[in-house]
């Protein structure tokens, strides 16, 4: 399959709709068998494929504003698939799939050097510091389509790739090569009660994600919608998670700017 005809799955998160309820985080953990410990007070040791940040404009009352920002893996494409984490992994345990645009993680090949974690500025890559232990009986509710991970390897959001594989299997059985937009949706997308998360193919003009952000293929997917932005776009990571907000301070919080720079004029 030529890359030009390939899928480029991506996500659009409307931050003006997000209430910070955390449903996406819960759905993600349940769907992907993400382990947890009795004491989760140290968030730097927690495994959260999807994490919701709370942002503030820093102004005193009554001008204080807040915004909740869900952060899955950005599935960076970088320049021609040269995403920050994929290029550094010494054992090819992570890969950029040009057919889907998804950055994979091969748990059985990862030997836990954590170089990918050092490379990722979004902190989406998480290390299994412990072996997973499930409360009695809970192992029966694990998702049989997702392998659990052992101690000593790195894991991260996979865009629920098993759902894509299942949908493709079903399509092949039915004699189809293409999926309908709603046939492959991530768990977080379906769980969001506010409908803040939209998922689809950024290469397909008929998909909602494309229409919402209007990615400019000539400029590595830069959004033409002025209310859309990507996190740390200036670093050249070329992420496939887009955020929407009508609030200027929220959009500016998405990247680093010098004091003299305006958001639109930054290189």
């Amino acid at each position, binding site marked *: 399959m030529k890359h030009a005809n390939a899928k480029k799955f991506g996500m659009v998160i409307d931050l003006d709709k997000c209430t910070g309820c955390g449903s996406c985080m819960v759905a993600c953990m349940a769907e992907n068998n993400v382990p947890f410990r009795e004491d989760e007070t140290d968030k730097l040791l927690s495994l959260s494929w999807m994490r919701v940040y709370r942002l503030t404009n820093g102004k005193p009352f009554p001008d204080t504003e807040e915004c909740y920002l869900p952060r899955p893996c950005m599935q960076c494409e970088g320049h021609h698939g040269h995403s920050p984490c994929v290029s550094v992994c010494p054992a090819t345990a992570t890969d950029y799939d040009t057919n889907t645009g998804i950055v994979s993680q091969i748990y059985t090949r990862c030997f836990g050097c954590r170089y990918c974690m050092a490379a990722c500025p979004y902190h989406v890559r998480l*290390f299994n*510091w412990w072996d997973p232990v499930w409360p009695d009986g809970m192992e029966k509710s694990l998702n049989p389509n997702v392998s659990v991970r052992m101690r*000593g390897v790195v894991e991260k959001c996979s865009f629920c790739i098993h759902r894509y594989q299942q949908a493709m299997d079903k399509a092949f059985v039915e004699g189809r090569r293409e999926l309908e937009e709603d046939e492959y949706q991530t768990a977080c997308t379906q769980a969001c009660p506010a409908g803040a998360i939209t998922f689809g193919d950024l290469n397909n003009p008929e998909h909602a994600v494309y229409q919402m952000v209007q990615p400019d293929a000539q400029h590595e997917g830069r959004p033409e919608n002025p209310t859309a932005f990507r996190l740390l776009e200036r670093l050249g990571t070329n992420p496939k998670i887009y955020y929407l907000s009508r609030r200027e301070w929220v959009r500016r919080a998405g990247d680093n700017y010098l004091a003299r720079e305006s958001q639109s004029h930054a290189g």
Partner: protein
Amino acid sequence: MDTALIPEGVKRCPAWQFILWIGLVGVVLLWGVYAMLLCWIKGLNQTNMNNAYGFALWIWADLAIIALGGGAFFTGLLKYIMGKDQLKNIINYAVLIGFICYSSALLILAIDIGQPLRGWFIFWHANVHSMLTEVAFCLTCYFGVLCIEYLPLVLENRQVDRVPFFHNLTHNMHEIMAVFAATGAFLSFFHQGSLGGVAGVLFARPFGYRTGVLVWPWTFFLFTWSAAACGPCFTIFITKLTEKIVRKKLVQDNVIELLAKIAGWMLATYVIAKIFDTAYWAFVTAPSKGFTVSDFYTGNPGSIYGYWILVMEIVVCGVLPAAILITDKGRKTQATLWLAVILAAVGVCLNRWVMVLQVLAVPVLTFESWATYFPSWQEIATTILPVAYGVILISLSYRYLPVFPQEKELNPMVSPHTPEGRAEPQASPASPEPALSPAES
């Protein structure tokens, strides 16, 4: 008790004293081994690393000891390839220090990875685009070279040398050592460089990222350069320290001064390059990503990563030791020589620290804050473990192997049978090559 193993014509401390010394250091070694086993059996939850600090004390220790062990490849290059023959009097020790540093680095890496039994995946599933892959291949190959370079010294033990095969093997290995020295220099260039590239290629980590030539960021060259400058300084430091501990002169001053002079000029040129690199990064690279230098050096808890660290690394541990070592007076004055080699070694360690720890500490997302970290006792113990191992290997090598060719000449043994207690020469130091025959034949 072990007199038969001690090289002829040199004096060593009594066996009980030596055993006591090894025993004391051995306790520290066992403490480190216990921590190492904890990490292997219970996993990396024994550390204070976290998802923000995936790299921490161990990776720093790896980078630092490999830089400090750079004295081996650079001294070998100077002696065997550049023809600085005087350095034959310190090359054994440089190789030994290098051997300790590199074997320690491999051990720490084996502890540091989450799945040690899968360590071989780095060779089997190698990603040729990864700097760590280059590090693994070159480091492993170079360790093999160091083993080959260290082996003749082991075979020169008095009793081993009595076996004709080993005696001849040693001689023949010395004959072809230039080949291994050249191989070692080649491999070192790449693994020292690729260690610099580890942080330099992280284009999404603005503190570490550097532009460069083709696939190599500037840190690639700076790491090799600094290792070639500071590695010999560490060799000199350990040599001087050994002399203090054993209370005798082991290497003549002119040898030390020659190595110090070359290291000094390497350090001086390195510091100039480092200043240019820092300036370009601060005023061009970082601003292009939306960062100013103050973002990297202010606002962190306790000013752990304040501007002081930049001044310390470049001025105090760079410009100052370079200025001392390139002057004749600086090298000849013991106090300034000591100061310079210590500062140079500290400087390269500090550089490796910031290129590992500070890279991860600096917040990149605008809504995140500085990450803090302090190592657990298990991390500290496993980092001290190689130091104890190094002390033991140096002690054993010094006691049983002819590490310092000038020792006999500089410390003639006084024989009670010699008239008027005059020094009795034990061997001709001027003899460039020992006769090719077994010691007892």
